């Protein structure tokens, strides 16, 4: 069980016992998921959190756990996720039918109005990407560059699923899944598990590693289904980002590395703009400037573990972002280490660009 494996490893990493865990947060694809997990792990937590807002759920969990710890409601919380999606279901989801209805599936609002069109999950993101291209002249090559730079990082990560270098031409030559998104514009389907532990500053000082601090967090939503996304070139990250940055006392220029939910190349591009790393409409130029700003050595090393595009994407990726940002700030990122990294941002995007959660982490408290 991937969640239990991850939980066990996180306890060992922190130097904590199971009995130290007072709160549990998790999200899966069914109700009461975190309660089921608590039972499996043999926990009887007095603080539970199960925000289930898609891939960004874990940024929301982190934000809520941070507030609860600040408020004194709970001292030590584990946030856990695992999914053996690839082993269990194979790549059938990879047909893109995930958002487009499956035989026997119920059709709750608002999907009853979307499923009959045959739109897929990839298609929803493709629609938004197309709008950005139309408004700002963003090109397929610029989107592809995100995938290429991410693969360079995956090549340095022995745990990444795909590690062979790719070029922009490779991305553009890969099968179009839903125009303008190609197969290599899409994240992988993998198994995976992840767990992090949050505790008070006092407690953290005595644990096995130098702590990494949450400095700010915020989240928000603009829509559920893609048809209700009023402006497909702007996400709720335009609100969550500035709010989290303000709490953290930082500006975009202070960020040393970026762990971004790369469900699709477009997700990265639009959120880079929304968080203020690039002016609106100039995300395409930003990612390709300077030989590739997302590379190690670029202005904003992004997804240094190889991201969802190349390393791992087990259904939801939000927690892996916080884990990679933490590795970087602890100086444990190996061949992908951003030298001297002091501020990292983990940003989750869930649903159909629907929910956005920003977490600012630092080597020092805010």
């Amino acid at each position, binding site marked *: 069980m991937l969640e239990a494996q991850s939980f066990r490893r996180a306890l060992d990493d922190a130097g904590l016992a199971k009995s130290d865990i007072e709160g549990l947060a998790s999200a899966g694809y069914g109700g009461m998921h975190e309660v089921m997990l608590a039972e499996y792990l043999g926990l009887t937590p007095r603080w539970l959190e199960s925000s289930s807002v898609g891939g960004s759920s874990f940024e929301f969990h982190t934000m809520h756990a941070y507030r609860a710890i600040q408020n004194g409601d709970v001292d030590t919380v584990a946030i856990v996720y695992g999914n053996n999606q690839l082993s269990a279901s194979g790549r059938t989801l990879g047909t*893109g*039918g995930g958002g487009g*209805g499956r035989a026997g599936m119920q059709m709750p609002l608002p999907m009853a109005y979307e499923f009959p069109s*045959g739109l897929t999950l990839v298609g929803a993101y493709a*629609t*938004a990407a*197309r709008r950005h291209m139309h408004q700002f002249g963003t090109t397929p090559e610029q989107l592809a560059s995100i995938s290429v730079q991410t693969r360079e990082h995956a090549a340095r990560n022995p745990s990444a699923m795909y590690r062979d270098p790719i070029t922009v031409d490779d991305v553009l030559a890969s099968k179009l899944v*839903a125009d*303008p998104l190609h197969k290599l514009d899409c994240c992988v389907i993998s198994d995976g598990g992840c767990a992090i532990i949050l505790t008070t500053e006092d407690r953290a000082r005595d644990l096995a590693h130098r702590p990494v601090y949450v400095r700010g967090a915020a989240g928000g939503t603009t829509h559920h*289904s893609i048809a209700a996304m009023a402006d497909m070139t702007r996400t709720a990250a335009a609100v969550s980002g500035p709010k989290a940055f303000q709490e953290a006392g930082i500006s975009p220029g202070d960020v040393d590395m970026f762990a971004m939910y790369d469900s699709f190349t477009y997700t990265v591009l639009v959120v880079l703009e929304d968080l203020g790393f690039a002016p609106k409409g100039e995300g395409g130029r930003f990612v390709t400037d300077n030989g590739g700003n997302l590379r190690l050595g670029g202005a904003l090393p992004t997804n240094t573990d190889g991201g969802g595009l190349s390393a791992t994407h087990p259904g939801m990726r939000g927690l892996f972002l916080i884990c990679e940002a933490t590795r970087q700030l602890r100086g444990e990122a190996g061949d992908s280490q951003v030298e001297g990294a002091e501020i990292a941002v983990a940003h989750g995007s869930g649903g159909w660009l629907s929910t956005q959660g920003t977490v600012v982490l630092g080597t020092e408290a805010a």
Partner: protein
Amino acid sequence: MSFLAHNGVSWEESPKYLWPRPNDEDREFWEGARRGELRIQHCTTCGKHQHYPRFLCSHCGADTLEWITASGLATVYSFTVIRQNGVPPFSERLPFVVAVVDLDEEGARMIGAMPTVAPEDTRIGMRVRAAFRPANDESAYVDFAAAD
């Protein structure tokens, strides 16, 4: 109207799992579509429109909604070409266009397939018109076709 048929599968075939299940809130929309009318809600407080049907106005929050028959005319806000979809019957229809359109009635946006428009002929900003595709005897889906 003639549908672009791919691999011999017509858009007119609607599997039962895709049938709408109308309720008191949205029956007017589905049954209107079956009659060939695009029924949407108009808010008499703020003057805006909305789709899909709701109890209150998603723009201003008032519950002063009335049903109107929309012109069916709309402008493509964005679109994609679905080239991969493993779910029947869509898997047999590939490729096909799905568009997000802004209705001429302010505030109402819809998503729909454009089975009669070829991918290479689809543009953001193109004018389209609602087309109705029966799901069963009671309901129909709303697709979009080129306006002229």
